[in-house]
């Protein structure tokens, strides 16, 4: 069964139809990539799926339930988690605490218990910390655990966001340009990480402009242009699509990608 089903999603900003009638499905453990030119509506699509924007039309089904317009925190409870293109870091908390905050759903408890420092509250914190340290190791930030998050370099913050998103143990993970700001080698590490997460059964929706990465790990690719879906299919099909090449890839890039692949 499809874990995430998006149907006819659309939204407008002022006069601009930023996303129009976009639909696709995502199965368990699958990696689906959304690509398209700048301003095609990829991030906006993410924002609608994750409950930050209320769609004007269409619906989002998660695990068979209609979750259209549901608030992000309730979506998180249902196993949807994401990272951001424009970094959203808890700046004045440490790196470790950032990831621990990602464990909120498992760690939360009654306020009173937390204020009184009851053993239950302490245990929940300890578990979150242990989990967070493991995740930091996984994204290669274990050495920065105690640093203030605001002091990390851009690339490191990107990875911190991934770790925080993973902390929710999501069923569906939305990644908005996870490799931006990383060089080829670092991108490859992220690439492996994503593949490994997917292998654990997490469904991944990916927005990324690094075509090498997209072509390598996607099971399926959806191409947007001016808010509309202009193509979809497996990487090979999509990369040969004339409209996709014209609107997005450009001739050179295609050659390069093909040459490397």
């Amino acid at each position, binding site marked *: 069964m499809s874990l995430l089903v998006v149907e006819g999603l659309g939204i407008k900003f002022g006069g601009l139809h930023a996303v129009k009638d976009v639909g696709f499905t995502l199965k368990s453990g699958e990696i689906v990539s959304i690509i398209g030119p700048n301003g095609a509506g990829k991030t906006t699509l993410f924002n609608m799926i994750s409950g930050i924007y209320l769609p004007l039309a269409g619906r989002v089904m998660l695990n068979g339930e209609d979750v259209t317009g549901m608030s992000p925190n309730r979506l998180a409870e249902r196993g949807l988690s994401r990272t951001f*293109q424009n970094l959203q870091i808890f700046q004045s908390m440490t790196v470790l605490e950032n990831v621990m905050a990602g464990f909120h759903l498992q760690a939360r408890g009654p306020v009173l218990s937390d204020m009184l420092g009851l053993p239950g509250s302490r245990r929940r914190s300890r578990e979150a910390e242990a989990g967070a340290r493991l995740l930091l190791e996984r994204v290669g930030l274990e050495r920065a655990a105690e640093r203030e998050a605001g002091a990390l370099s851009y690339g490191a913050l990107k990875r911190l966001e991934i770790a925080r998103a993973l902390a929710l143990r999501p069923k569906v993970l939305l990644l908005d340009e996870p490799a931006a700001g990383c*060089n080829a080698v670092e991108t490859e590490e992220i690439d492996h990480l994503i593949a490994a997460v997917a292998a654990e059964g997490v469904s991944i929706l990916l927005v990324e402009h690094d075509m090498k990465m997209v072509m390598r790990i996607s099971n399926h690719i959806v191409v947007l242009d001016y808010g509309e879906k202009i193509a979809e299919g497996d990487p090979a099909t999509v990369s040969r699509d004339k409209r996709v090449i014209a609107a997005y*890839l450009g001739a050179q890039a295609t050659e390069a990608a093909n040459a490397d692949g």
Partner: protein
Amino acid sequence: MLTVEGLRSRYGRIEVLHGVDLHVDSGEIVAVVGANGAGKTTLLRCLSGVQPVSAGQIMFRGEPLTAVPAFRRLQRGLAQSPEGRQIFTNLTVEENLRLGAFIYEDERVDRDMQDAFAMFPILREKRNLAAGGLSGGQQQMLAIARALMGRPACLLLDEPSMGLAPILVAQIFDVVKSLKALDVTVLLVEQNAFGALSIADRGYVLETGRISFEGAAAELIADPRIREAYLGI
């Protein structure tokens, strides 16, 4: 044109640049590559004066730059497209561009703006919208265009290709290359090391606050260590 000697810089008590030496000759395109956290952004911030320098010298067009406040450096000919884009989110696209040429008040401003629109037509479409509403890539275009509005003699670009669609990445590199013809010197920090070195004359590799390699771009691309560590080939 630009010479950096023994540059050190710190955030609080932590030093992140431990004596960087580099130089950029007039009309050159120089690429700086390095891993996350190596200090590339910090280096550019020092050059544009928004980051304190704890030791070392920066010479620009034969004059020391270290004591010049940030806002005067554009007058000296140094413009930057910073990391994280740093556009004026509450102002319109056009106002952003106009402010890029804040220090000028002549008719060339309008011409430059038309050039910017020609380079990135989407910006023309969105000229009257708040820049904060732009998509990530569109904001990146705006940041680059705004830097160009400052008519730099030397342009500092911090990861200009980040978040841009492949077709635009190619275009950006073409633009950078074409700046050469306009006699603009470019210092280019890039994660897309392959792309950057392909258009650069020379390159530096920054490793945890120190320069570890330098040389002609072609040499660096050919160097197996660099190929393995930064180009992923």
